[in-house]
């Protein structure tokens, strides 16, 4: 990492002198001063391998007097340069003092032409039917540097398999592959899932997958972005459209708190009634958030937006009767009437995909009818308020964590809950950061940890508070770390347990002086894309708990699929007199609502989310509308207008202006501010397709990070850690799987991912299984707390600790336990 401390060295590139931080890669350095050295195998996010030989340049060194260190001059007074006898691969060199580079010369030009010629000897040149055609580095560099004609005898070209499924999601065209190894290296070095490899040798060298199932990773799609040719294509997009027919729309992933910046490639499409349709989603560079990566859930999980289950028009229930289609005006009027008549007995529960604008408008509507009861859904994770206080400091970039720094990951399965954080903590680990994982069970993150500490199920807070006693050597490393980031989830915790853990984390960070600074502080691994937005706009899980306990007369459900999530929802919902549902889907809650208002997904509208690192980021309208659905904030604003609360805003941007005026945290978050971009390193995308992938370049904005209270210099007090643990012989811990059957991921059309979603299962310890006479693969019935028992398959695989069973949520239609509870498992 280049820091202000890094020494500068003088380098001459094409006869001009520049200063660069010592140790910078030569290709990157040249690129920074607009000297393009063409590459295929090199990628600034991975170690150089010198395979393709495209980056050959002339390199020399300025000669200095050994004794005095003075530059030796030739007869005409110019520095003497000793040129290396052979061309050198720039990608495998770093800048050093006195280095001289010639990026073009006869020899260099010839070498490049030859490399391109070699690469094309057996290349199929099927650009007209290649997905990469139009945004292909090989195409571009052939135009720029290659010979105009092929000297290879056509019959001598090597023919290979063109449709090799590496897994369910990615195909390999062996003929197009130029053996650059980027995909293999990405999987090994960046993702940490070593599932691709080279097979055979010489001209037979090919990419294969070495996992079963094939290409088993959450990050496979990234390889299609960085593949410099059309060798890797996604099952989702291949042969779907040509790059030049599509527009690139900056958007955000709405699946998890990372908030990956993405880019939707869209075009008018006959498969979508001639409307603008998202054809694919790619990562958009935001070095502080997702770098240039994203996970496969975000990339392929956009089909739900076009699902057949989408609600198409507003509906109102006649007294005691069924729902019938209404105009927006009538539906709005009906909702307004119900709210107006509620006498202030109103509450809102907003789901994790509701945007900042939606939440603010809801808050105002509630206030207008005399309610401050704003619940966040799902009510599983507490402590967003603490994150607002001691969350990671402004300017935090996980890529800056390395030697001397530390990361603690506690009570979360980071791989499943926030994949890109898992990837970024893994690379921090590779750079030398000390990574500690604490949980009651093994998780994938353990593979990238320096220390793994296990605690008894449910006892995260006390375990952490006792860390100094129990694991002094680990505590020591965390306390003394230059920088410390804590990722805390709520796995295996009740809502109170979650609060206790968050408080313990906050206390530790405050006590060890790891708050109020960049690259230090707390990150809540919360569900969904906007839990921090929920907090800043007044929504809390505690309020949800209160709403459930004391049902209001009128409940507004805003994109909260409560029945699918919570086995108890049907019961508590029945105590609410009136439900007004703002929903994408025809879900169970909607079916019992009095007023149903179809709202738009992130795809069809603009808006903003506040990610887990408190970065407010905006997304733009990518896809054509569905039915009569409108943005949730608009529906809410129209109800408020009907209630006489003031004129509805005309745009999301205006709503944000209101937020900026009303909520101090959002100062500086006007849409124009959120849209600001600045140069990022490495430079990717752009016209020269330098590293492959057109949509990388961020033109939509980098967002604005909200300052934490500690950032603002406010003193933050320690709090009491109130331990809370569930007791029982067998405790059922709900876990999260990235690929699940939630409507916002799996809804109908998303068959693409169906094969990747696990069949419902429960994980049970071998000892417990033996005691209960359960064998691996048996069907068992699991009951937990008050939830309806569910039938699932038992996995006796060593994943669950003794006395605890792990029951992933959302793998089946029936809701399973939302939070930890005592339960039973019996063989059926």
């Amino acid at each position: 990492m280049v820091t202000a401390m890094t020494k500068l060295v003088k380098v001459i590139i094409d006869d001009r002198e520049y200063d660069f931080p010592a140790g910078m890669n030569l290709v990157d350095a040249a690129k920074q001063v607009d000297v393009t050295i063409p590459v295929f195998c090199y990628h600034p996010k991975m170690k150089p391998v010198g395979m393709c030989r495209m980056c050959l340049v002339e390199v020399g060194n300025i000669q200095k007097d050994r004794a005095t260190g003075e530059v030796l001059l030739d007869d005409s007074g110019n520095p003497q340069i000793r040129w290396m006898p052979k061309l050198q691969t720039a990608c495998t060199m770093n800048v050093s003092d006195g280095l001289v580079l010639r990026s073009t010369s006869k020899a260099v030009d010839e070498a490049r032409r030859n490399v391109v010629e070699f690469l094309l000897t057996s290349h199929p040149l099927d650009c007209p039917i290649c997905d990469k055609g139009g945004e292909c580095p090989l195409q571009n560099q052939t135009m720029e540097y290659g010979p105009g004609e092929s000297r290879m005898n056509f019959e001598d070209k090597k023919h290979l398999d063109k449709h090799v499924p590496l897994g369910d999601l990615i195909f390999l065209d062996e003929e197009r592959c130029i053996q650059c190894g980027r995909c293999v290296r990405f999987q090994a070095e960046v993702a940490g899932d070593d599932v691709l490899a080279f097979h055979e040798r010489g001209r037979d060298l090919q990419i294969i997958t070495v996992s079963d199932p094939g290409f088993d990773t959450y990050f496979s799609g990234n390889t299609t972005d960085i593949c410099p040719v059309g060798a890797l294509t996604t099952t989702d997009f291949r042969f779907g459209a040509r790059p030049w027919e599509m527009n690139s729309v900056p958007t955000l992933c709405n699946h998890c708190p990372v908030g990956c910046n993405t880019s939707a490639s869209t075009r008018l499409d006959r498969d979508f009634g001639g409307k603008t349709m998202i054809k694919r989603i790619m990562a958009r560079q935001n070095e502080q958030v997702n770098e240039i990566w994203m996970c496969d859930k975000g990339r392929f999980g956009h089909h739900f937006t076009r699902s057949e289950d989408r609600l198409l028009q507003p509906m109102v229930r006649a007294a005691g009767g069924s729902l019938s289609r209404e105009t927006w005006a009538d539906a709005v009027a009906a909702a307004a009437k119900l709210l107006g008549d509620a006498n202030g007995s109103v509450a809102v529960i907003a789901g994790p995909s509701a945007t900042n604008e939606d939440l603010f408008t809801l808050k105002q509507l509630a206030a207008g009818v005399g309610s401050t009861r704003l619940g966040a859904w799902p009510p599983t994770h507490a402590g967003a308020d603490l994150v607002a206080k001691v969350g990671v400091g402004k300017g935090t970039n996980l890529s800056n964590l390395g030697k001397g720094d530390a990361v603690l990951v506690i009570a979360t399965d980071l791989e499943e809950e926030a994949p890109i954080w898992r990837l970024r903590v893994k690379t921090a680990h590779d750079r030398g950061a000390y990574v500690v994982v604490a949980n009651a069970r093994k998780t994938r993150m353990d593979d990238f940890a320096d220390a793994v500490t296990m605690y008894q199920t449910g006892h995260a807070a006390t375990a952490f508070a006792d860390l100094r006693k129990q694991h002094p050597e680990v505590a020591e490393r965390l306390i003394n770390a230059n920088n410390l980031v804590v990722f805390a989830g709520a796995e295996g915790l009740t809502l109170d347990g979650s609060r206790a853990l968050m408080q313990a984390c906050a206390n530790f960070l405050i006590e060890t002086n790891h708050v109020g600074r960049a690259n230090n502080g707390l990150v809540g691994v919360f569900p969904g894309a906007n839990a921090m937005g929920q907090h800043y706009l007044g929504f809390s899980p505690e309020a949800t708990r209160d709403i459930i306990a004391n049902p209001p007369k009128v409940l507004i459900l805003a994109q909260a699929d409560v029945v699918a999530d919570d086995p108890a929802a049907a019961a508590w919902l029945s105590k609410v007199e009136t439900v007004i549902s703002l929903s994408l889907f025809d879900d169970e809650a909607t079916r019992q609502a009095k007023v149903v208002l179809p709202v738009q997904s992130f795809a069809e509208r603009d808006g903003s989310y506040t990610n887990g690192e408190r970065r407010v980021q905006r997304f733009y309208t990518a896809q054509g509308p569905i039915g009569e659905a409108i943005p949730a904030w608009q529906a809410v604003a129209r109800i408020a207008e009907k209630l006489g609360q003031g004129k509805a805003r005309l745009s999301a941007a205006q709503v944000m202006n209101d937020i900026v005026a009303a909520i101090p945290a959002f100062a500086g978050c006007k849409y124009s501010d959120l849209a600001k971009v600045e140069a990022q390193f490495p430079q990717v995308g752009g016209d020269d397709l330098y590293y492959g992938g057109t949509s990388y370049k961020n033109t939509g904005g980098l967002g604005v990070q909200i300052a934490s209270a500690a950032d603002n210099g406010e003193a933050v007090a320690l709090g009491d850690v109130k331990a809370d643990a569930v007791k029982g012989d067998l405790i059922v811990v709900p876990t999260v799987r990235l690929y699940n059957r939630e409507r916002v991921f799996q809804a109908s059309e998303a068959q693409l991912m169906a094969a990747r979603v696990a069949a419902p299962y429960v994980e049970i310890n071998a000892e417990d299984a033996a005691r209960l006479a359960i064998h691996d693969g048996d069907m068992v019935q699991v009951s937990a707390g008050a939830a309806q028992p569910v039938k699932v398959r038992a996995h006796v695989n060593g994943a669950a600790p003794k006395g605890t069973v792990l029951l992933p949520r959302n793998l089946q239609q029936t809701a399973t336990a939302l939070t930890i509870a005592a339960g039973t498992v019996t063989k059926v």
Partner: protein
Amino acid sequence: MKTMNIIYREKDIPNIREYDVYVANGGYDALKKALGQKPTEVIDTVKASNLRGRGGAGFPTGVKWSFIPQSEPIKYVVVNCDESETGTFKDRQIIENNPHQLIEGALIAAYAIQATAVYIYLRGEFWDQAFDLDARIEEARKGGMVGKNIAGSGYNCEVYTHVGAGAYICGEESALLESLEGKLGQPRVRPPFPANKGGGLYGEPTVINNVETLANVPWIITNGPDAFKKIGTEQSAGTKIFCVSGNVEKPANYEVPMGTTIRELLFDLAGGISGGRQIKALLPSGGSGPIIRINGNDDPILDTPCTYEDIAAKTGSILGSASFIVIDETVDITWVASKVTKFFKHESCGKCTPCREGTYWLDKTLDRIMRGEAKESDVDLIANVARNMQGVTLCALGDFAANPIIHTIKNFPEDFKSHIGAAKTPAAPKTAAAAGD
């Protein structure tokens, strides 16, 4: 003309492969002597002897050892017994017949750099030899020469064998290290070099030497560097094993002092050209070095002394691993080029573009030339393709693969011309042993 057996001592002492016989004839005395010296003294002795690496590049062995940073706690010696160069079969004879001399030499090297272990990497076909070596290592261990507290000196060093999966490229030192680590055998980017931290086996500083190189070391320690330098020439000290194959009456390994002439080797030792025919060409460094044109048995070029310096200066080729493939007047050089190219196409690791694509391209085009389907311009094409491969690849195999094309076309243009136009049946050499069909 006589051979001189510093390495092939089995020729003078039967059963020297056995530990007891080896020890009875002064075996492991050199190791004991070295263990009584400071490691740097051992390095200095080897430096002073001018011993050069026998693996092909001829790098001064003592200098190579001195690159190893003494401060690193973990270091390795790796013995290169991949022996895959076309026409090379000398190391096999050493490990089969005088294995203890290799083990002793490797342990001296290990002591000199204070290595913790020696790995002997053998080509994939050397299974039987590897098992036999394992038995020899155990013999030496029983004798106190391997493992803990070697010869009571307090120095510990393990010796392991490892068999590759059968790839020429795994003889290239950095690919060898990858393979030894259990990875795909492809060369590494350098720097860091094997001697540096980060560049060697498992990232630790490592000396890699050829079998023959190390087998010289005990003799040097016992007899001193000056005695060694008295054999051969200043720049090419000692004996060298020449693997003579092809169109000679007595193909075999011959160990002779450096400076022996090509004529002495081929005619005095190897019995002359097969069937009394005339010599046409010589590949002195197997398929990977430039071919030498020799205009019959009276050509004065045959009087060139076999040293690194003379072969380079007087023949335009290289001594390399001294794998002398002899080609007589009946052999079509185009056929030789196509044969050798098939080898390199098969053995290219595929990591870098010019070699991966170039060897395939050359091979396909040569096939067409051999079938009589090519145009004259195809000969120019392959010459140009080969030149485009030179100097731009990740490892030397790319250069090796280009050499045969460039030099066969340059030295034997008429052989290529004869294939243009009329369809021809491939011209096979008269003796099957030639060029190892």
